[in-house]
């Protein structure tokens, strides 16, 4: 793996045909057909650490594209300011998320060198949104990193307008990899077990890993929540999973 890549900001047609900003990274690996990944950023937004994740996928042989889910509220704003605005507004509406991921998926499939396979991965609020996307459109592999409120409703007082979406499980279009922290409260290990049970009932292939000593956001290298042992194993699980379902 050369790890050479090209990364840039692009515009794509998201929900309702809106032109939104997105960050694209593509491996410089020549003519080899490759799989693609839509990256759904965490609730703190379209930030540098999320762009680093996009580049990591490209360094490992995948074209990766991350739509700026807060672009409409805050075009050109700093990511933390945009996230504060989106947070105050209750997060991203589900319908809009689905449209934005679908636009990103179409963009990736149309890129030269695509093998036609597209996966999705999301962190934090993006974990729930990864599941939502995979239940709403044809995809080839989905990864949920500690997404809450698939099974439960946010507690009273939370501004987030998320609602449970486990009822969508029969529509899950692809295998699901779930990576969670045993110390996380959103989602709790009990919720993860419930989701696994629902997926089993519908015959949906999935594999969940819950790491002891890790909580929410254990992949976040610039935060105190970072747990290298869990994150390193998690990345290996992702490469194995995408290798099976997205690679040519």
């Amino acid at each position, binding site marked *: 793996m050369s790890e050479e890549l090209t990364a840039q900001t692009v515009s794509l047609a998201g929900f309702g045909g809106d032109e939104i900003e997105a960050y694209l990274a593509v491996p410089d690996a020549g003519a080899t057909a490759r799989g693609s990944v839509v990256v759904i950023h*965490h609730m703190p937004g379209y930030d540098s650490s999320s762009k680093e994740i996009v580049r990591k996928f490209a360094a490992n042989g995948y074209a990766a594209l991350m739509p700026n889910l807060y672009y409409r509220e*805050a075009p050109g704003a700093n990511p933390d300011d945009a996230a504060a605005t989106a947070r*105050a507004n209750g997060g991203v509406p589900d319908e809009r998320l689905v449209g934005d991921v679908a636009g990103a998926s179409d963009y990736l499939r149309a890129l030269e060198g695509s093998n036609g396979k597209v996966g999705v991965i999301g962190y934090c609020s993006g974990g729930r949104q990864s599941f939502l996307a995979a239940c709403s459109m044809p995809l080839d592999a989905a990864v949920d990193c500690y997404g809450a409120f698939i099974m439960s409703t946010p507690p009273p007082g939370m501004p987030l307008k998320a609602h449970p979406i486990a009822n969508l499980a029969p529509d899950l279009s692809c295998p699901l990899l779930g990576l969670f922290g045993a110390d996380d409260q959103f*989602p709790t290990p009990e919720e993860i077990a419930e989701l696994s049970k629902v997926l089993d009932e519908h015959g949906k292939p999935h594999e969940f890993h819950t790491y002891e000593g890790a909580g929410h956001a254990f992949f976040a290298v610039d935060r*105190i929540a970072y747990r290298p042992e869990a994150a390193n194993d998690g990345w290996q699980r992702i490469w194995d999973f995408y290798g099976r379902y997205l690679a040519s």
Partner: protein
Amino acid sequence: MCTYNTEKVEITGSGKGASGWFSLTDATVYFDHPVHAMAEHTLNIDFLNPARGPSARVAVELTAESARALAAAIEAALAAVPAALVS
């Protein structure tokens, strides 16, 4: 998930952000994962003027202990002022 209870309050005053001083109309107060502070969770305050866009924001992220100390200091400072000045 990175979201906990949010308190919203209308305020009157000014704040100094990245582009200089601006009028403040709103504040949000919430306990959540910080962007910058090295703590799992912090008490975050956003001083805002939404009419001027997302960048009209002064943000602080405080440990719970610091936030309580700040709240007490604010109350103490106000209590020390003659009532006629703060009515």
